[in-house]
């Protein structure tokens, strides 16, 4: 009679001693394991815990589970309201996918509520991973209001574990190695981040058999969608902005405004652009899929005086495009025009965000903003005490700014995802009617092409 194998959790993996390995285990779960001669054990990825245990159970093979450190929890939603039809459909689809899969819903449509329903359904210790500290704070409030207890937090100097724990992706990548066996349900908010080379280990080192990925924009330029499905399960439900606008999301309009540069700035822009472009030609660097990359450009730049000049010229033209005087004036006009609305102003970089903040005395949130002040700015914005907010990228995703109905993109990257997420910030249904997204583009500059690239999404068609 074989001794049943004992499975334990070891630094993000599932192990069993070689002496306990037997033919039965080999036949039904052997493909997931590799023999580790360093420790004389059989080792599998922690994320394969669910399939392994299920296979052993189905085949009635005895085993001893010392890996699992999660247990049934009496999670019951307080003051719950009935889900909207599409939220209910999403939950049913996820359950049908054996509680392992991704739900794609637009920003502002209530993805978090679907997650709460999933937590209540599974009733096991849960880990929610989020990309930013702002989102972590937001989730902490949601969990406290929904279940009536303080969640554990990993990130921003916090490290406490509770039946429901919220972590940033960065902290989860560090702590999962030691705590990945404490959770039965793993929820990845903004799960399009998960396939990244470091973050994917958050999911791989966790034994949670139940998994829920949430995103509005699962597409990745590197094809990481396939990895996402391996980590979190298939996409089991999708609804787009177009499906929900009107009834559940605000109606919206987008306006592109081309802002002419002042004569002096235009000349400065042209001069800088000339130096930069000439250098690219001289060095045979072609960013449009040809030879050379940004790293090559930087490498060459620092080798010569001409290179350093080209780099400086690149920075100058970028700065003019992003925050020209005319853009600042246009921004001022828009704020005055919508002075009684909640306005969120987006920039591509921190320098521009602070320039706007200093020029108009406006609150700015970047990764440098301290937690206490960040919270105060968000609250003042939400309750209308101070209805204007400037941010670079940290509020692009997830953070709930329900009353924002005007978005002004002063500058941005060419990323479709970023632009869709920014639009999402102002779409949450509120009483203030239709939402407006303005996009300021410096006329006659390369920003035009950047804007064209980022608008390649259904949400911007015919708008």
């Amino acid at each position, binding site marked *: 009679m074989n001794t049943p194998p004992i499975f*334990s959790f*070891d*630094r*993000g*993996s599932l*192990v069993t*001693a070689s002496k306990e390995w037997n033919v039965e285990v080999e036949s039904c779960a052997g493909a997931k394991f*590799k023999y*580790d*001669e*360093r*420790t*004389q*054990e059989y*080792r599998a*990825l922690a994320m394969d815990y669910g399939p392994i245990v299920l296979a052993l159970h189905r085949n009635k093979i005895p085993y001893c589970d*010392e890996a699992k450190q999660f247990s049934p929890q009496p999670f019951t939603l307080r003051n719950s309201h009935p889900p909207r039809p599409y939220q209910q459909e999403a939950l049913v689809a996820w359950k049908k996918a054996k509680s392992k899969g991704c739900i794609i819903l637009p920003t502002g449509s209530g993805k978090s509520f679907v997650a709460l329903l999933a937590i209540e359904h599974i009733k096991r210790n849960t880990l929610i991973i989020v990309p930013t500290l702002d989102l972590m704070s937001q989730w902490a409030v949601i969990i406290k209001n929904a279940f009536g207890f303080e969640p554990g937090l990993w990130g921003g100097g916090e490290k406490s574990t509770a039946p429901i724990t919220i972590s940033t992706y960065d902290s989860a990548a560090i702590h999962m*190695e*030691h705590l990945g066996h404490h959770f039965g349900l793993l929820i990845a908010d903004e799960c399009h981040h998960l396939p990244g*080379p*470091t973050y994917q*280990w958050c999911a*791989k*080192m966790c034994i949670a058999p139940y998994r829920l990925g949430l995103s509005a924009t699962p597409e990745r330029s590197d094809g990481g969608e396939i990895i996402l499905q391996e980590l979190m399960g298939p996409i089991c439900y999708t609804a787009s902005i177009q499906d929900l606008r009107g009834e559940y999301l605000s109606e919206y309009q987008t306006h592109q405004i081309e802002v002419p540069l002042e004569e002096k700035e235009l000349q400065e822009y042209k001069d800088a652009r000339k130096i930069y472009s000439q250098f690219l030609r001289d060095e045979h660097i072609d960013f449009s899929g040809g030879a050379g990359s940004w*790293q090559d450009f*930087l*490498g060459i730049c*620092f*080798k010569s*005086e001409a290179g*350093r000049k080209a780099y400086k010229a690149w920075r100058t033209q970028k700065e003019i495009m992003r925050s020209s005087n005319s853009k*600042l*004036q246009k921004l*001022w*006009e828009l*704020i*005055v025009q919508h*002075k*009684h609305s909640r306005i969120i102003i987006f920039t591509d970089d921190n320098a521009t965000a*602070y320039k706007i*903040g*200093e*020029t*108009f*005395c*406006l*609150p*700015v949130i970047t990764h*440098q903003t*301290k937690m206490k*002040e960040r919270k105060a700015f968000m609250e*003042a914005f939400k309750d209308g005490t*101070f*209805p*204007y907010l400037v941010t670079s990228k940290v509020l692009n995703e997830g953070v709930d700014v329900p009353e924002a109905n005007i978005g002004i993109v002063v500058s941005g990257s060419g990323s479709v995802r970023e632009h869709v997420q920014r639009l999402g910030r102002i779409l949450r249904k509120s009483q203030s009617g239709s939402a407006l997204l303005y996009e300021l583009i410096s006329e006659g500059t390369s920003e035009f092409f950047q804007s064209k690239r980022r608008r390649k999404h259904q949400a911007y068609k015919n708008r």
Partner: protein
Amino acid sequence: MLSKDLLRYSLKEGHFKPFLLSSQPKWLAKAKEILDLYQNSIGLSQEELTESCLKHSSSVGINTKIIRGFIHLLDKKVELHEVNEEGYQEHRQACFEKSKSLFQGDHELTFKHFSEELKSLSLCPDYPSLYGDLAHKRRIKSVPQWQSITLIHRYNLALCQGLIQNAQWVHLSITKITAKKLSYLIRYLNFFGLLFRCQEQKGYAVSLKIEGHLTLFDAPKKYQKRIAALVGILPQLDDFHLKAELLIDQKKALFQLEPEQGLRSHFQAFSDYIPDEIKLFAQNMTEAMNNMGFEPTPAPEQTGPVSDWVIPDFCWQKDSQKVYVEIFQNNQASMLQKRLRQKPWKKEESFLLIEKALFKKMNLEENIHLMSYSSIPSTQKLLKALKNS
């Protein structure tokens, strides 16, 4: 360690070779120039200091990557003046109020007049700018007091660490190592969550392949930073040969480090990577053992394959009587599992102290040779067990 954009190396005949700085007067002088710029930077912002260093590099023609490498190392040790953060926050709040009433008020101001009006309303001598408390605007209070040679040594080490960060695999060969030193090395690897695979061994000459637990599943990147940190302690081994395969910008080649390259370590001794509670236990236990007439003794000689070596954390001897103590913390499950399968010396001499959570996890039963501890290993418990054995 230096980031990828600061690495300087050549790729020749299938080998990456780091451009290490020598301690020749030319480099000592260059390092001094930068250190002097730092010395004279008290009161400037870090942004201004970086700018002046880069300006200097282009005027004297030093490769900017070297200067940026120096800046990278020095900036970490720069101390900034404290600012009145609460004062700034209150000032901002007051400015926001003024700004809001100006935006929402009924007036016919032009953009220019609006900006001027806002500027005058928010002027305050104590707070020259609205966000003046941000790190990049704060003023430098003190800078590291390094010698030129220190900066060069640190630069060389950081450069090698930066290169190793791109390793696909790393082999560490040591031709002569004592059992004790090797035990410290293994403990160090364990401290950083690394495993090793013994590639070759002839007596005390070993070649180890350094890996992580999940390297089996194609995760070389996950452990690159930890392995790169290992480079910091290499110079403390009298004799080492590190061989790695690096993948940089899609080019794959070998990389080697040896004592002849002259790397110097400023890291604490790797044998010091012992948690405080264990240090405290060791101190108390040594005192108690001394009182009983026991003296510390070197770890017993090992002969078999290095992967089977068992090296106690503490050894004491009184005449022919020997006492070996091994400590296992919660994160050493696999080490303990392996240890329990081995019996290299007499049971009555050997004591294993195991952290409670691990003890419980492995379903062990207490006896006088196998004891659990909760926060600090108990000397009293061990002494009692010793007497009983």
